[in-house]
């Protein structure tokens, strides 16, 4: 029964060719972010003052920026930061959201009501504005950005988990586990969460692109990673003032940023659809 379900999920997913492509593109970007900088003879901070704003050529594959730094190297260094921050923030969101949602749903009653009302209040505030505010006050830096992004980023995760757990806890096997004396923690961790893992993974996949976007937006507003390190958002911001004359400086980071977010979204949507048996045709 279990293996049939996952078999069907795998089949439904691989029928979605677009999502399979998205998966391989993400894999490709991740691999390049790890090995990309090794392909280049330059470091991401190396300055070539004689060759500022060079267009893409044999020496600088993606061109160079206003200090003559190699954009190819910087793009893949930036990929590490953009992807790293995005994935880390999404993982923290999942950890907090799953715990919050599972406790709310399993407790039920007043506790549930209050915990989810807290979510409602936090959810009604503009997410990006809160993140900006926190970063402005604490000063930018990777840790601050992560904290700010996960302050309210976990809410969707909590809602998804809560819906799953609230449904699963009414099943007979849960009552059976309770009757033989399993503790609530054990029931949640061993019996409920493994069965709720599908939607949680799908939500995780959809949280990553929104975290990548938030980091890029912060960097674009000048609140992100500090020079000389650069994420894709920082590079877009740097290229903005010169885009009329040096459009490639804008093209590469914004294209990769969009492509990565698009692929994660396609993948997440496909996972969500594949995990929903009602959509089986």
């Amino acid at each position, binding site marked *: 029964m279990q293996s049939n379900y996952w078999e069907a999920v795998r089949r439904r997913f691989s029928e979605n060719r*677009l999502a399979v492509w998205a998966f391989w593109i993400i894999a490709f970007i991740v691999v390049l972010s790890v090995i990309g900088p090794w392909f280049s003879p330059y470091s991401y901070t190396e300055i070539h003052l004689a060759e500022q704003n060079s267009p893409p050529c044999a020496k600088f594959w993606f061109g160079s920026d206003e200090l003559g730094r190699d954009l190819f190297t910087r793009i893949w260094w930036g990929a590490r930061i953009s992807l790293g921050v995005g994935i880390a923030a999404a993982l923290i969101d999942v950890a907090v959201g799953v715990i919050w949602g599972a406790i709310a749903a399993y407790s039920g009653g007043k506790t*549930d*009501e209050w915990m*989810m*009302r807290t979510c*409602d*209040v936090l959810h*009604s*505030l*503009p*997410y*990006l*504005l809160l993140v*900006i*505010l*926190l970063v*402005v*006050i604490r000063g930018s830096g990777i840790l601050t950005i992560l904290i700010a992004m996960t302050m309210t980023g976990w809410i969707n995760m909590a809602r998804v988990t809560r819906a799953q757990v609230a449904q699963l806890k009414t099943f007979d096997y849960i009552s059976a586990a309770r009757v033989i004396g399993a503790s609530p923690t054990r029931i949640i961790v061993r019996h409920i969460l493994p069965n709720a893992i599908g939607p949680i993974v799908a939500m995780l996949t959809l949280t990553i*692109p929104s975290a990548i*976007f938030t980091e*890029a*937006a912060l960097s*674009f*507003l*000048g*609140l992100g990673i500090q020079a000389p390190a650069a994420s894709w958002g920082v590079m*877009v911001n740097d290229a*903005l003032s010169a*885009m*009329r004359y040096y*459009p490639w400086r*804008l093209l590469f980071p*914004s294209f990769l*940023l*969009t492509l990565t*977010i*698009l692929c994660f*979204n*396609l993948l997440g*949507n496909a996972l969500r659809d594949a995990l929903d048996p009602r959509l089986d*045709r």
Partner: protein
Amino acid sequence: MHFAKKFLILLFSLWCTISGTFFLMHAIPGDPFIGDKILPEEVMRSLYAHYGLDQPIWVQYWKYMKSIVSLDFGVSIAYHGRPVAQFIREGFPISALLGSMALCLALPMGVLLGTWGALSRGKWQDHLAMFLATLLVSVPNFVLSTFLQYAFAMKIPLFPVARWNGLESAILPMLALAAMPTAVIARLVRSNMVEVLAQDYIRTALAKGIPLFRVALTHGLRNAILPVISYLGPVISAILTGSFMVEKIYAIPGLGQWMIHSINARDYPMIMGLTVFFCTFLLVMVFLVDLLSAWIDPRVRVVSYAK
């Protein structure tokens, strides 16, 4: 009952926001009057007294609350004591106009795209519509803005590159702001429409010989669009924060650009004032949207977590 509960939640959220910004403002390290010059102690003391900083924090909190209630959002430091309320009076109408233009574009476009997808469910048109929606959600608005600016203002000079004068200059920023809401609405309308089209009354209408397109418009859309209304809150929120980036790129003198200016100048009182204003505006809008959807759709009133 529904109204009273929502109203209480609104008040509570507002109180949380305002208190939050107050205590955040006090959490900023440093002293506003410690600058390049070292001031004599008497001067410092009189400055503290003038701004009420020598009083206990609860007295300051109470004063802050009273000033917010009377729509006084403090003064800017970077612009030499100009009241934040004045920036809001000048900038907000522009941002509001641009935002409503984007919303007016996104609603019909999103409904059209979503309906198109639902009517051709499973076919290539459906896949195309949903791919477009995913693409529009995925392009960060600052990337889309710069792309539109480069393509349709610099390479093909159809529209002005930036600035805010006349309808022409509003087109590109409006498109950039409308992309995300269009996509969100399209997804929502499609999934609702698919559900509605499977209902018996749709089959009855089709059996009577009414063309599919007309059925979709008269019966389907009416039911598929209700959830969209209750989803307008997040859409307004997206437009609001999106305006920061878009106004920066197109040099539009709206409130979003003032927000960016104050962030760059680390003008804390102004950042706080604008944050309180943005949050209040958004919370009130969400409240109004809630009322609207409860008024239109009685089902909303009984929905609770115990679903």
